[in-house]
C-alpha cells in the first residue's frame, strides 16, 4: 500500500510554486486559489483514504471559461492537473500529486435547467446526484442511477466514474442516462457534446468520456435523462438455506424473463453484521438472503412478485417477506445500505473489493472466497448486486497487526484475479484509479492498454491531466485492489456505500 509509485515529481514546477500561484490568481478570483499547507490538507485524499498526498495548489474555478484558462495555462507550463468533484470516489481517482494543481469543481453547484418537455435536467458538475431527483420529484420524475453515496457524490464525478447503483440492470449506469456534456480538454478547448438529442452524430465522445476517470477532460456541464417514477415499487426479502440456492434463484428469476429493478444478495456473515447494526429483521438462520425489488405498473409488479415468490419456493427459500408499504420496503434496504458501517463495527479495519462476475458463477466465487478466508484466517462478508453481477467482498482485519495487513492485501488480490478468471472484470463501479491500476494486465494485454493510452495522448498530448491513474506504471501486475478503511473512520463515514 505504501509503496505506490506515482509519476515522477517535476521539481521545476514545485520550485516555481509562487509564480504559478501568482499567475493563477490573475486568471481567477485570488481567493479561489489555495496554496497554504493548512488549506491544502482537506484535499490530500478522496474516498480511498489510505492514500494521502497534498497537492501543490488548489483552485476553485467558477465557470467554464475559468476552467479553460487554467487548463490552457497549465498545459503551456507543463503543470499536472487533477480534477475533483465531491471527492467521494473509492479508487483514488482524485488523489493529488505533489506537483499538481488540484481543480475542485465545488463551485459548479447549480441546476441550470429542468426541461420536462425533453425529459432532462441540465446541471453543473458539482451538483449532487440526489439533488437532481429532488428537483424533479414533485412532478414524479427521477434520475435513475443511484450510487449509494448519492447524497454526497457529484454528478460530474458520476460521469467521470460511470457510476452505477443498485438499479443498473434495468436502468443502466450513468452512460445510459446521459444526453450531453460540456467539457474542457487539457489544451483549454471547450466542447459541447450531445445536448438534448439521442445518439449524437460522429464518434460517441460522450461514451468515451463517461468512465474515463478524469483522464481525458474536465466536465463543466451535464445533461441527464429523467424518468417518470414507476407507479408501484415492491420488494421481497428472501432467505435461503445455502448460497447455491440463492444463486440458483437469481439465475431462474432472470431466465424466466423477469428484469428486477434491483436484486441484492448477502451472505450469512453480512446478514448478521447488518442485522445487528440496524435491526432490519433479516432471516438470521439463512445462509444467503436476497432482496428482489420490482417496479412498474401495479398489475405487473403484483404478477411478477407472485412469480418471484414461486421461483423462490422452488429454490428452497426458508423465508419470504413481501413489502406491504414503502416504509417496509425501505426497511428491507436499510440493512443492505448499512453494510459498510456494520462491518466497521465488527473489526477495526476492512477492505472492500469491487469485481463483477457472471451471475452463474456466484456460488463458485463465494466458495473460493470462503476457502481463501480460511487460508488467510481472515473473516469476510459478501454483498452482491446479484442483478448485475457486481460483487463486494468485505475483508475484516486489524491494521495494527502488520502481518494481517499483508495477508489481507494478498487475499484481496486473489479475489480480484479469480473474478477475472471466471469471466468477470476488475471493477464494476468504483473505478480503477490508483487502486487497481497494476491489476489492469489481468484483463488487458499490451495491445489493449496501448490503444487506450494512445487515446489519452490524442486528447492530452503531454499526459498532464490526472496522470498516474488507471494505467499500470509498474509492469508487474500484482499490487492490491480494494478500499481501505481504518477503524471505521472513512473520509465520509456517514455516507451509505455501494
Amino acid at each position, binding site marked *: 500500500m505504501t509503496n505506490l509509485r506515482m509519476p515522477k515529481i517535476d521539481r521545476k514546477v514545485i520550485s516555481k510554486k509562487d509564480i504559478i500561484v501568482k499567475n493563477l490568481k490573475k486568471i481567477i478570483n485570488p481567493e479561489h486559489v489555495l496554496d497554504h499547507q493548512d488549506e491544502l490538507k482537506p484535499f490530500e485524499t478522496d474516498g480511498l483514504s489510505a492514500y494521502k498526498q497534498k497537492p501543490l495548489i488548489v483552485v476553485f474555478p467558477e465557470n467554464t471559461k475559468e476552467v479553460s484558462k487554467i487548463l490552457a495555462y497549465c498545459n503551456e507550463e507543463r503543470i499536472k492537473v487533477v480534477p475533483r468533484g465531491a471527492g467521494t470516489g473509492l479508487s483514488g481517482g482524485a488523489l493529488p500529486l505533489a506537483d499538481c494543481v488540484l481543480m475542485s469543481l465545488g463551485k459548479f453547484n447549480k441546476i441550470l435547467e429542468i426541461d420536462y418537455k425533453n425529459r432532462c435536467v441540465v446541471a453543473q458538475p458539482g451538483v449532487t446526484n440526489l439533488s437532481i431527483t429532488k428537483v424533479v420529484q414533485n412532478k414524479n420524475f427521477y434520475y435513475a442511477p443511484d450510487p449509494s453515496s448519492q447524497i454526497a457524490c457529484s454528478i460530474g464525478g458520476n460521469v467521470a466514474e460511470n457510476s452505477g447503483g443498485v438499479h443498473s440492470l434495468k436502468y443502466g449506469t450513468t452512460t445510459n442516462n446521459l444526453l450531453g456534456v460540456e467539457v474542457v480538454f487539457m489544451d483549454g478547448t471547450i466542447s459541447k457534446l450531445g445536448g438534448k438529442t*439521442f445518439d449524437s452524430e*460522429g464518434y460517441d*465522445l460522450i461514451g468515451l468520456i463517461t468512465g474515463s476517470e478524469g483522464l481525458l477532460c474536465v466536465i463543466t456541464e451535464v445533461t441527464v435523462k429523467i424518468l417518470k417514477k414507476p407507479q408501484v415499487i415492491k420488494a421481497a426479502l428472501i432467505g435461503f438455506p445455502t448460497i447455491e440456492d440463492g444463486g440458483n434463484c437469481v439465475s431462474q428469476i432472470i431466465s424466466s424473463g423477469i428484469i428486477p429493478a434491483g436484486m441484492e444478495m448477502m451472505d450469512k456473515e453480512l446478514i448478521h453484521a447488518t442485522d445487528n447494526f440496524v435491526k432490519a429483521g433479516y432471516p438470521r438462520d439463512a445462509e444467503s438472503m436476497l432482496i428482489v425489488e420490482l417496479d412498474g405498473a401495479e398489475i405487473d409488479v403484483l404478477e411478477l412478485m407472485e412469480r418471484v415468490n414461486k421461483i423462490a419456493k422452488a429454490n428452497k427459500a426458508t423465508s419470504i417477506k413481501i413489502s406491504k408499504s414503502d416504509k417496509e420496503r425501505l426497511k428491507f434496504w436499510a440493512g443492505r445500505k448499512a453494510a459498510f458501517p456494520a462491518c466497521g463495527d465488527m473489526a477495526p479495519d476492512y477492505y472492500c473489493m469491487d469485481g463483477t462476475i457472471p451471475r452463474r458463477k456466484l456460488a463458485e466465487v463465494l466458495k473460493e472466497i470462503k476457502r481463501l478466508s480460511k487460508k488467510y484466517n481472515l473473516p469476510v462478508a459478501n454483498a452482491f448486486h446479484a442483478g448485475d453481477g457486481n460483487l463486494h467482498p468485505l475483508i475484516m482485519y486489524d491494521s495494527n497487526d502488520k502481518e494481517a495487513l499483508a495477508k489481507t492485501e494478498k487475499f484481496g488480490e486473489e479475489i480480484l484475479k479469480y473474478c477475472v478468471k471466471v469471466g468477470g472484470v476488475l471493477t464494476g463501479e468504483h473505478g480503477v484509479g490508483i487502486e487497481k491500476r497494476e491489476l489492469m494486465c489481468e484483463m488487458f494485454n499490451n495491445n489493449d492498454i496501448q490503444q487506450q493510452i494512445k487515446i489519452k495522448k490524442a486528447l492530452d498530448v503531454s499526459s498532464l491531466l490526472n496522470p498516474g491513474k488507471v494505467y499500470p506504471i509498474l509492469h508487474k501486475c500484482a499490487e492490491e485492489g480494494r478500499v481501505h478503511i481504518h477503524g471505521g473512520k472513512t473520509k465520509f463515514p456517514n455516507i451509505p456505500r455501494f
Partner: protein
Amino acid sequence: MEEKQNFLTSRDSNLLYPENEKEVSEIIKKFYKSNIPLEIIGSGSKRKIGKPLQCGKILSLSKLDGIVEYQPEELYIKVKAGTKIDKIENELKKNKQQLVFEPIDFGYLFTGKSNCGTAAGQVACNISGPRRFKVGSTRDHILGFRAVNGRGDIIKSGGTVVKNVTGYDLSKLICNSFGTLAALTEITFKVLPAPEDSKTLVIHNLGIESAPEYLEKAISSSNEVSGASFLPVDPVCKKCKMNIKNTFKLNDLKYTGSLTALRLEGSKKSIEKRVENLKRELKIQKLDTSELETLQSEIFWKKIQNLEFFSSTKNNIFRIVIPPSECINLIYELPLNFKYFLDWGGAVIWMEGCEISEQKFESIRKKVVKHKGYVSMIKYSDHLPYVEDVFTIDSVRFNISQNIKKSFDPKRILNPGKMYTGI
C-alpha cells in the same frame, strides 16, 4: 506470406474475405505497411450510408460468421462480427429474448426488400428502431468487442457483464464509427426478454400541430409506452413515394387520415390496464382511434422500424434528430413538399427530400442545428448522388475526432473519408 495468400483470393479480386481474426489482422498489417486504404464492410447492406469510398480493396467481414457464446440467463450473446442480425434474432427468439434496440433492416430502403446486414454493420452505424427513446440504442447494448485497429493490432474492450468500469469504454466509441477506427471481429450484445404481447393504440386525423403533444404526454406517463410515432398524410407530393396507406394494410387499422401510434408491450393483462390508463390520461375517448392486437401491432412496428413506406422511393432520404420540444417548430421551417414521419416521440424525423439540391440540404441542416439537432443523409438519389457533408459536425469535434482516428488508424487506411473528409 505466400502460403497465407488464400484468404486474399475471392470471387471478386478486389474483395478480401478473411475467415478469422488473425487473417483480418494480417491483411490490415499488410495494408498498413504499404499505405493502401481498405474499405471495411460487413455484408454491405448499409454500405451506401456515408460518403462513397474509392479504396483499391474491400475487406468483407462476412465470413467471420457464427454465434460464439450465448448465455440466456446472463443476458448476453457473443457473436463473430459478420454474423447476420436475423441469425442472432432467431437464436434469441428460442429463449424468448431479443436485441431490444430493434436493428433497422435497411434492405427495404436501399433495395426494396429485406436485407438485414451483420452485427458489425449494426454497431458501425448505430441506428436503432422505434423503441430507442425508452431502452437506448445499439451503443447502450454492447458489452464488449474485439477488433483490429489500423495498425493491424488486435484489440479488445469491455466484457460480458453490464457493470464494468475497467478502462475506457471503447464499446461506445466503436459504435457509430462506420468502420473508421477498427475492423470489428467479435461483439458481445446485451440481450433482454422479449415482451409477451404488444398492442398499438392509433389516434386518427391529428395534425402536426397537436400530434407531438400526444406523443410527449404518452411517453411522460408511467404507462411504459415503447413506441410513439406520427405518420402524417400531409404534405401531398406526387414525386414522393412515402405511402402510409399501402404500407399498412392491416384489418383493424382504419384509414381516415394521419396516424398517431402508441405501442405498449408486456403481458396481456398489463397492456389492457395500461391502455385504459393511457386513454384516460390523454383524454382521447372521444377521438377516432384504432387498436391493433399483438400480431398486427408487431407487423405495424416492424414496418416503421424498417422504413418500409420509403421502399420504392427514388428520392433522397435523410434523418433529423432533435430535442422533441423543437419538433413542431422545425417541421414548420422545413420545405413544405417533403414527406416525413416522426418517431421516438418526436425526437427523430425521417424525411423524403424530393428533388433536393445540396444547397437545400445544407439550408435544412442550418435550421436543424439552430434547433439544437443534427441531420444525416441516409440515402442518395440520382438527383442528388453526393453531398460533401453527410453528417453534422462542428470544428472542435472534428479536431477531436481526427485525433481519435489517428490513435486507432494513424495512416488512415480504414474507411478513410467515410464519415468526414480528413477522418
